[in-house]
């Protein structure tokens, strides 16, 4: 875990309202595990005040600046513009200063995945799944179900395909891939045979359906959750979720930032999201 003042290498709008940003991040490569995130200070001013959490989408290397030097590491974010912080992030240009704190959180549990991993993403929910796919694609069968409201919400398909990951796209309005909900595609896929594990990230409504489907089919599921965060390190207790079996008498409160953001579905009290 490090807190660094660093530099934007590149910031590109990849689809309407979605950006991909590369940030110089020395040594992050060996530190980041798939599913971990960073807290970004979009501007060194008091407004906006708090940092914003973003998954590490990918780690990459820039060509060395001169012979003999090692290639420079960067981390890549994929983000959606939703409010003030991401609006500012969208305006940042090559060379602009930015502060990142991380890597944070637990990341996916790679050991329990088995041989046949199914990734399920809703829109910007692809963000934590690329590194997971990358870590597994060589040794396992990995497929990706990618859903979105419309064509604009389908991101990074070629990145996954380049890893050799079979990718199935669906959109609510049929503007890209199959027309329909990604959860319908999931139900169908599971009907054809259960994978050894599912990993999901996306809007809570979609995650809940995925959870119901996987629970019914008894497929082990890992979910990457979101919560409002102030600190990202377990200190503020702002980002709590109720763990499975939580009660006032026997509290089981988990921090999304430190105990998560990735949880086994069986460890979460799903009633809280109903």
């Amino acid at each position, binding site marked *: 875990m490090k807190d660094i003042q660093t530099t934007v290498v590149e910031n590109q709008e990849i689809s309407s309202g979605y950006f991909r940003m590369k940030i110089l991040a020395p040594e992050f490569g060996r530190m980041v595990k798939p599913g971990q995130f960073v807290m970004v200070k979009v501007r060194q001013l008091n407004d906006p*005040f708090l940092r914003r959490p973003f998954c590490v989408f990918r780690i990459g290397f820039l060509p060395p600046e001169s012979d003999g030097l090692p290639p420079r590491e960067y981390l890549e974010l994929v983000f959606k513009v939703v409010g003030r912080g991401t609006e500012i992030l969208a305006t940042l240009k090559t060379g602009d200063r930015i502060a990142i704190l991380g890597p944070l959180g637990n990341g996916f549990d790679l050991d329990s995945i088995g041989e046949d991993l199914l990734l399920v993403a809703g829109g910007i929910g692809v963000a934590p799944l690329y590194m997971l796919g990358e870590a597994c694609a060589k040794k396992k069968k990995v497929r990706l179900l990618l859903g979105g409201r419309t064509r604009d919400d389908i991101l990074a398909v070629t990145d996954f395909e380049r890893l050799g990951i079979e990718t199935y796209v669906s959109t609510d309005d049929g503007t890209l891939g199959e027309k329909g909900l990604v959860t319908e595609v999931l139900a169908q896929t599971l009907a054809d045979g259960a994978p050894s594990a599912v990993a999901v990230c996306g809007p809570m409504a979609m995650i809940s359906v995925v959870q119901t489907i996987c629970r019914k089919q008894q497929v082990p599921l890992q979910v990457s959750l979101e919560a409002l965060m102030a*600190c990202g*390190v377990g200190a503020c207790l*702002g980002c*709590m979720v109720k763990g499975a079996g939580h009660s006032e008498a026997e509290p089981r409160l988990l921090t999304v930032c430190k105990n998560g953001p990735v949880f086994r579905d069986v460890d979460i009290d799903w009633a809280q999201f109903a």
Partner: protein
Amino acid sequence: MSGISQQPAEPWKPNLQVDIGGLTLRNPVMPASGTFGYGEEYAELVELGKIGAIVTKGLSLKPKTGNPTPRIAETPAGMLNAVGLQNVGIDCFVRDKLPFLRSVDTPVIANFFGNTLEEYGEVAKKLSDVPEVAAAELNISCPNVKQGGIVFGTDPRAASEVISLVRKNYSKPLIVKLTPNITDITVVARAAVEAGADALSCINTLTGMSIDVRSRSPRLANVTGGLSGPAIRPVAVRMVYQVAQAVSVPIIGIGGIVEVEDAIEFLIAGATAVQVGSANFVNPGTMGHLVDGLEAFCIEEKIRDIRELIGSLRI
């Protein structure tokens, strides 16, 4: 540090040591309760041996689950929180959290509270049995559940009662943390000192609220929450100044400290030490930066002892 390099013949370092009601700190910088967990959360990022003290999350007699989420909302130059004093409870703290703190060469200040008068007393008693706890910080900004939820800290009589009781049960340095949600903070400040407080912390959060206009619902599940961050600094500095005029015990200045200048502002207003709250979330390096910055400021301004700054406002 420019002073050092410019005067190699006579290098000197200012004295940053301060005394809080009998507790000596190597420097006046510490975290504010509830923004630094139990110390270990930031151990990877903050050199714990460098700061003046570690202040724990508020502890209660029994574990407390706090409020439902959402508990956090960002506001202009600040944030609201309604964590609801979630904590592991005093017993679990001593069992699970203290061993780590023991390994750090920095005094531990235990922040604590009760839901009733009696609970305050019991926690104080338990704390006084813990040798690793160097001092206690009594949070009186909590509603008195038995007396209809009136906040202990807004009524000088209730404050006096709870502080006197705690004082009986606790003989090490006792810091009382005041609430800013009050007409005249000096009234409770005086009552606190009379009831036995060795030092005062000013301020806790201002009560605030924020609404999501599309859903028309409060951004915090608890409806209201505590406002902290740079936004409240002018109020905090004013209250520290007022309290410093009213009492003669040491004051710990809290509220919106981000930069070195902010910490110095509190010292000049009359604080002997400062606590950094929300800024830890935004820049975990803040406290280390403040310690270095205070030293550099003293050198630049030729201040041999940081205590010269305390209450040095020139009007």
